């Protein structure tokens, strides 16, 4: 084993010197390293085969767990600053080691299983919630061809995996045999099932335009090809940005619908009814402590990352960002700034917006939540589908005014329909 190792090390040195010299395509650094590693593992036999497969998934899990740790810190700092107080600043510089401290605390906490809970369900729930959370990440195109699995029907697979979350949340609620967690579990199922409809319908618009459900094809389609290949750097930058779907009228409406149902699907702020701490303590998480609770926490955040990743791939042009062709390189496909930089930038911007929303908005009641999904988001998603269909066949000078007019009108109509009669919000107060 010793000689293969130093052979391996020697190869790296020689490969690096060869490639780094002529770095003609900085965007594809990781892809080239991966390809080289795969060839290297090729001649290692079965171990190499396993390593090659692991190479696709293990970095994914590592990177997104790292993002999870960063987001917990970001969330507590952001919420703190919104509420005019310092966030955590005692553990490490600016509180950066706070996620680590939380992790260790979670590990050391005693894991209490209630005596009347049935052990199997209580134990299986966090395991089952991890499956959809982690597999959801597989379909996100992080870089140009940095993607774990570019399956033909990737988008539908993502939504199918996402629907398993409701099963595991119910199992957690039902298995911990506590009245509040049962109510939380029932609420979670009702919310997750009824918010899948607007989620899928607002994603279907993009599939209709791009014509394929493969996420990397969707991202490729969000570039204005003619501008990108032209040689003026400004045009290249604009080409990569203006191509995003969010700059189309139907795209903006689709993005907003998708983002709002993503908030609901990930149990985030205005829709965090399953673990509404003021009403039913911690909902389905009441009876969990120690590392199982950390697993739920991790799964919830990674699920949020997956859904935000899908939002960026569909509407914000996954790894497209204003970067130019490096002047010194020869092949026309090269890009200066690697794609994943833009991808993670967009994810953290959307995460910041979610934290901002979490710091501001109170919680909806369960029947308003249902009403909001079925009577507000669903009709808008269907109208958006129709408008996008017409937009596809119309010329741009017809399409834009038509779709903008229809969308705004339908938004106003749906809002008026939803304004319940007995509630008149402008109250007059007499003074005696």
């Amino acid at each position, binding site marked *: 084993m010793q000689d293969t190792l130093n052979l391996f090390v020697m190869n790296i040195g020689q490969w690096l010197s060869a490639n780094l010299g002529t770095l003609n395509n900085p965007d594809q650094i990781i892809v080239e390293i991966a390809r080289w590693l795969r060839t290297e593992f090729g001649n290692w036999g079965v171990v190499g085969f396993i390593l090659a497969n692991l190479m696709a998934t293990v970095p994914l899990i590592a990177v997104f767990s790292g993002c999870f740790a960063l987001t917990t810190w970001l969330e507590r700092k952001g919420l703190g600053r919104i509420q005019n107080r310092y966030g955590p600043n005692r553990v490490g510089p600016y509180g950066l080691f706070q996620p680590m401290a939380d992790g260790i605390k979670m590990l050391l906490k005693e894991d209490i299983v209630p005596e009347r809970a049935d052990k199997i369900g209580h134990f299986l729930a966090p395991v089952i919630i991890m499956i959809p959370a982690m597999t959801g990440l597989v379909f996100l195109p992080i870089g140009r061809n940095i993607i774990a699995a570019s399956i033909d029907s990737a988008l539908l697979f993502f939504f199918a995996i996402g629907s398993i979350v409701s099963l595991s949340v119910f199992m957690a609620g039902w298995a911990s045999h506590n009245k509040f967690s049962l109510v939380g579990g029932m609420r979670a199922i009702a919310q997750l099932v009824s918010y899948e409809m607007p989620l899928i319908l607002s994603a279907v618009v993009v599939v209709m335009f791009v014509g394929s459900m493969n996420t990397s094809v969707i991202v490729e389609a969000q570039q204005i090809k003619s501008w990108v290949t032209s040689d003026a750097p400004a045009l290249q930058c604009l080409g990569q940005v203006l191509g995003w779907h969010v700059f189309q009228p139907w795209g903006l409406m689709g993005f907003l619908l998708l983002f709002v149902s993503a908030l609901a699907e990930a149990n985030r702020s205005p829709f965090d009814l399953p673990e509404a*701490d003021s009403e039913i303590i911690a909902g389905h998480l009441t009876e969990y402590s120690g590392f199982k609770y950390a697993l739920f926490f991790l799964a919830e955040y990674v699920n949020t990352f997956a859904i935000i990743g899908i939002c960026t791939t569909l509407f914000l042009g996954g790894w497209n960002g204003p970067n130019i062709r490096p002047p010194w390189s020869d092949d026309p496909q090269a890009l200066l700034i690697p794609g994943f930089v833009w991808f993670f930038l967009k994810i953290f911007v959307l995460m910041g917006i979610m934290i901002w929303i979490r710091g501001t908005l109170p919680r909806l009641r369960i029947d308003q939540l249902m009403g909001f999904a079925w009577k507000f988001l669903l009709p808008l998603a269907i109208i958006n589908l129709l408008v996008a269909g017409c937009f596809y066949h119309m010329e741009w000078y017809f399409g834009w005014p038509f779709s903008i007019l229809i969308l705004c009108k339908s938004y106003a109509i749906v809002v008026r329909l939803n304004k*319940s009669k007995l509630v008149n919000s402008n109250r007059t107060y007499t*003074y*005696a």
Partner: protein
Amino acid sequence: MNTSTGYAPRNYKIVKHKDKTLLEVAMGPHHPSTHGVFRMDVKLDGETIIDLIPYFGYLHRNHEKLAEDMTYFSTMPYTDRLDYLCSMTNNWAYALTVEKLANISVPERAEYIRVIIGELTRLVNHMLLVGFYINDLGAIGTPLLYALREREKILDLFEWASGARMMCNYLRFGGIREDVSDEWLASCNKLVDAFPYFLDEYDQLLTGNEIVISRSQGVGVLSKELAINAGITGPMLRASGVNYDLRKTDSYSIYDRFNFRVPLGQFGDCYDRFMLRLLEMRESITILKQALRDIPKGEIQSKVPPVLKPKPGEAYGRIESPKGELGFYLVSDGSVNPYRYRVRPPSLINLTLLRDLCIGHKLADTIIIFGSIDIVLGEVDR
């Protein structure tokens, strides 16, 4: 259908009610949003409330019996602990009653300082209510922490004047324990001028918010007749449109010198109660401005014998505390300590209506209605 599986008794009961099986849940003393130790036994059909039985008394400290074998003067610090959020209004009500019993006069400057302190405590109480109400609605602490930030400034003023932030024990029979320096009045002026800015920011954050509107309008509607019959007082009564404010009707101490308005609600639901507190805060600021403008110089406590022995007799003094009509009923038999010492707690009497307001609403609404009634368990259980 035999559903017991031989385990220890379950922490919830399945109750038959007509034809539906209900889930009886104890929103127990250990619940995050009951503002202290208070238990509601709730019968749930799905999420809607069928029946609700409140249990309180977890914080009973035998306050009234204690007061019977202590001198009038020694009970004063205990009145801080009644409604521990606004301690000075309790002192004021107690001092007012004893002054009525032993007819002690109160100098001008002391009256003005009492009005200033009373209105500052009303600001603190209303801010806390609005903050906790929105916190029950679900906004994770943001409005609450804005309210706490402003409350800190007022508590610093209290500490500066009386020595303690919450348990001030600052009022004495016939006046006030220590005089208030001019810098204190200046900083109080600065605070009162800066306060409306905070209220506008609060209005912009909350009153127009669609979620707050849809969650609290039409919830827990209290009709005028029911309010009057149940003896409800304070902002909860005015939210139903009944014009009854002790500062106007009794005009005790020197409230008749200030012109201020009393806001009245229209529907008497949670949104009105919430809005009313915000409007009352603005009125308190107008009172504070006028009081700070024309506070006279002079001595702050009239001559009172060190050991007070009032003539046998009885007196009932009441003031408009931020939660309602806070009354003290004292019967003295001429000796050093009172024969009977009774407190009329506004929180307890407002709480009696919890069941009628909550029936038929969702589980989440009971928390909102309970929050909008503004309960402090110290005063409910005494």
